[in-house]
């Protein structure tokens, strides 16, 4: 929450209580302090309480009302719909706090009416308002579209239409609400257990935003991941889901100790997994093992229980690999690049079907408006780096792979382009794929997108695999940091993911207090410290067949030749070298051949000159 949003919230509270009695104003002060203490910290809580007092006092002294339309108009122009939803939920929670019950709140025209008026000014639809209201008040029986509610409990409440996730460890229960139009999730917990959201305590009945990458834990053990919750709302097809499993995988390059050691992990459809580590720690080797280019010397890699050894051909059909360097045809347009890739990969589609699919995919990836632009070379770019990267990704996505491996998708991109590319990859994960991404130094926004991260250390040792926010806590705890529970800045919510690598790479000091080149903790020690957490239940489905059918060799040849010809014809330099220069050379040679003859001194005379 930024200062503008906090001020707006306080002003809206002031608007609601301005004409009320002293007890209502006192309640608003208490609630404001409770809210901002919970959202930010006690200092901000106290400050905003005083701010509210001041706003109400000033308005009363000036005998003026608070201009709600102006506040809402500014909010509409400067804040996202998600931020406006949070404001509305806080207002509804405040109404409930005052009235003590949803039924009484609905009967209270003064408060409920003012909140509804604010919702209208904030351009929040009646449907969304109704869902917010039912969620905050706990009157779930009022919810019309029950697909937007998820209950997490030890036993199913058997409520028709609601999603349900079983968690036997808890006595209480969670209610999650999903706003599909804005892809936003909030939750409320009812119970007495000591639970944490991203290492911060969860208060019963309070409303929390559940952002990408978040985790709810119980006594330090992960209980519920964001990916699990969003997967329920998005309705990922469980029957088509895949589970990638690596068990004690060991790979070393010949005559060296570099490679990967004792790698064990499980990842499932719907997850975006970040592979992090410095240069040369084995990130690319890891991808080469996963795409079947390399074979482990020990251990087992399997997809839905089918080992790579037994079903590599079938598995490879389900894998998409996007290398760091793009493989686009610079003289072809965006559309043509994707079209010919689709023609090669999808042998079962007609030309028209392929064109339709390509246009749809271009629109999905925000490339439709540049479909007729030539891609251009790396020196003379017609499309931006972010657009190039998206085109590369969609070229793999068009085959509908179940497992997508993306190598350094953000390298060389601006922060805005990086976030856009990563958001698209997150969307792909949420649509039911398993997406693995090699990445360096992600920003907070990108780091939050990951459902899991794999941290590799020098020599290819796995030193962490799990929730990204838990990773910060884990390494800070092992480094003996006093603020180990502080995984994100309490005010700005930034996450210093770099701190993980600072801790891993921490150096010893000599007797003079100078840093040495020796590390405090060796990679093998970090590796042995890490004990993977139990992932809970994983259902293994039979490995499905790839939706794409390989094109026959005749058609492949035709597509290759067409693409190559088109590409070459548009290459002016190539055209000159291939067609103009040979003709000119031939003409020159022919000229000399026809009009020259040897003279008596062993030289050459031009016949034409002799004629002259």
């Amino acid at each position, binding site marked *: 929450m930024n200062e503008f949003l906090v001020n707006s919230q306080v002003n809206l509270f002031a608007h609601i209580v301005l004409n009320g009695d002293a007890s209502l104003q006192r*309640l608003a002060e*208490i609630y404001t302090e409770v809210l901002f*203490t919970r959202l930010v910290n006690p200092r901000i809580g106290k400050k905003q309480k005083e701010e509210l007092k001041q706003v109400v006092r000033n308005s009363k002294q000036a005998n003026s009302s608070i201009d709600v339309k102006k506040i809402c108009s500014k909010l509409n122009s400067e804040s996202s719909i998600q931020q406006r939803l949070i404001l509305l939920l806080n207002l509804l929670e405040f109404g409930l*706090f005052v009235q003590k019950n949803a039924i009484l709140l609905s009967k209270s025209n003064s408060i409920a009416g003012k909140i509804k008026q604010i919702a209208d000014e904030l351009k929040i639809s009646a449907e969304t308002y109704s869902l917010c209201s039912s969620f905050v008040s706990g009157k779930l029986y009022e919810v019309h579209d029950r697909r937007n509610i998820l209950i997490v409990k030890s036993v199913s409440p058997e409520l028709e239409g609601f999603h349900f996730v079983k968690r036997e460890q808890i006595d*209480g229960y969670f209610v999650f609400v999903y706003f599909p139009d804005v892809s936003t999730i909030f939750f409320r917990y009812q119970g*007495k257990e000591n639970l944490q959201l991203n290492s911060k305590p969860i208060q*019963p009945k309070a409303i929390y935003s559940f952002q990408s990458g978040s985790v709810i834990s119980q006594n330090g053990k992960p209980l519920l991941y964001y990916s699990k919750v969003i997967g329920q709302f998005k309705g990922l097809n469980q029957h088509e889901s895949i589970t990638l499993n690596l068990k004690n995988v060991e790979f070393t390059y010949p005559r060296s100790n570099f490679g990967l050691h004792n790698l064990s992990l499980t990842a499932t459809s719907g997850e975006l997994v970040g592979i992090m580590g410095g240069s040369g720690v084995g990130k690319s080797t890891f991808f080469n093992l996963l795409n079947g280019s390399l074979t482990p010397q020990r251990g087992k890699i399997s997809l839905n229980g089918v080992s790579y050894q037994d079903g590599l051909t079938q598995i490879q059909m389900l894998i998409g690999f996007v290398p760091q360097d793009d493989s686009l045809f610079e003289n072809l347009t965006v559309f043509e690049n994707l079209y010919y890739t689709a023609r090669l990969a999808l042998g079962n589609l007609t030309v028209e079907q392929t064109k339709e699919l390509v246009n749809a995919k271009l629109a999905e990836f925000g490339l439709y408006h540049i479909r007729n632009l030539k891609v251009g070379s790396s020196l003379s770019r017609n499309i931006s780096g972010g657009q190039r990267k998206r085109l590369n990704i969609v070229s793999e996505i068009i085959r509908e792979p179940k497992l997508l491996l993306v190598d350094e998708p953000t390298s060389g991109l601006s922060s805005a382009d990086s976030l856009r590319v990563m958001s698209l990859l997150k969307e792909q994960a949420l649509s039911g794929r398993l997406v693995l991404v090699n990445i360096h130094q992600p920003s907070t926004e990108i780091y939050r997108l990951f459902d899991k991260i794999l941290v590799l250390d020098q020599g290819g040792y796995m030193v962490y695999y799990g929730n990204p926010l838990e990773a910060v806590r884990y390494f800070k705890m092992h480094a003996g940091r006093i603020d180990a529970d502080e995984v994100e800045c309490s005010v700005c919510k930034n996450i210093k993911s770099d701190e993980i690598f600072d801790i891993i790479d921490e150096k010893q000091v000599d007797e003079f207090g100078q840093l040495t080149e020796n590390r405090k903790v060796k990679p093998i020690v970090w590796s042995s410290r890490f004990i993977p957490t139990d992932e809970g239940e994983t259902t293994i489905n039979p490995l499905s067949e790839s939706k794409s059918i390989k094109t026959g060799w005749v058609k492949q040849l035709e597509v290759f030749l067409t693409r190559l010809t088109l590409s070459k014809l548009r290459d002016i330099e190539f055209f000159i070298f291939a067609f103009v220069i040979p003709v000119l050379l031939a003409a020159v040679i022919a000229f000399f051949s026809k009009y020259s003859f040897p003279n008596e001194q062993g030289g050459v005379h031009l016949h034409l000159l002799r004629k002259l």
Partner: protein
Amino acid sequence: MKLNDYSSHSEILRQVGFESRTLLNGITGPIQLIRSLSNDPNLLEILHILELSTVRFEKFSLRSQLLSDLLNPSMQVSNERFDLVDLLKHAVLELNDFINFFGVIFELSKDLSSFEVEADRDIIYQSVLIVFEQFMSVLESGSAIKVDCEEHSQKISITAFDNGFVADKFNQFSENQSVEIDVTLFVHSLKKFSIPFTVYKNNGHTVMEIARQQ
């Protein structure tokens, strides 16, 4: 409180409800603030017990207000069609904290099918909560409350082995004796919307049967 006294008590009930909410706000606000400031598990446990009491107090306040509304002839109530079985399941979910606190078990039959009624949903929801709360308050830990359907889904039955205590409370009402606000609200609500019900003892059990509206 006797039946013929209700109309005269309507205004008092409304005021009791309002005043108790004002008092409650003085307690629940600071509880939430303490929660925000402390992570001490022992303190959180104490706060939870305090909150359970405030929730009961909140319910008392609400139900006083609702009873006052029901007794007021000019008060408009909404009338909508909904599934009573669905409402029963929601009530079990909402009572989760109390179920854990009292240690009772809810057994909802798999045969329960849609049981539509036309009434004010909020008021009927409170009535359903009242029935379950009445049972929970007299049952021993580990006892079960069974919810089933009878006579080819023409009736819903709620049964528990409570030595007939709950049945006695409802009988007191029919005998015009003084009973709790909760029981009074339940009876008035169901009568208001013409939802037939019977409460009787059977071999140490209390059986409550709710029939379909005519």
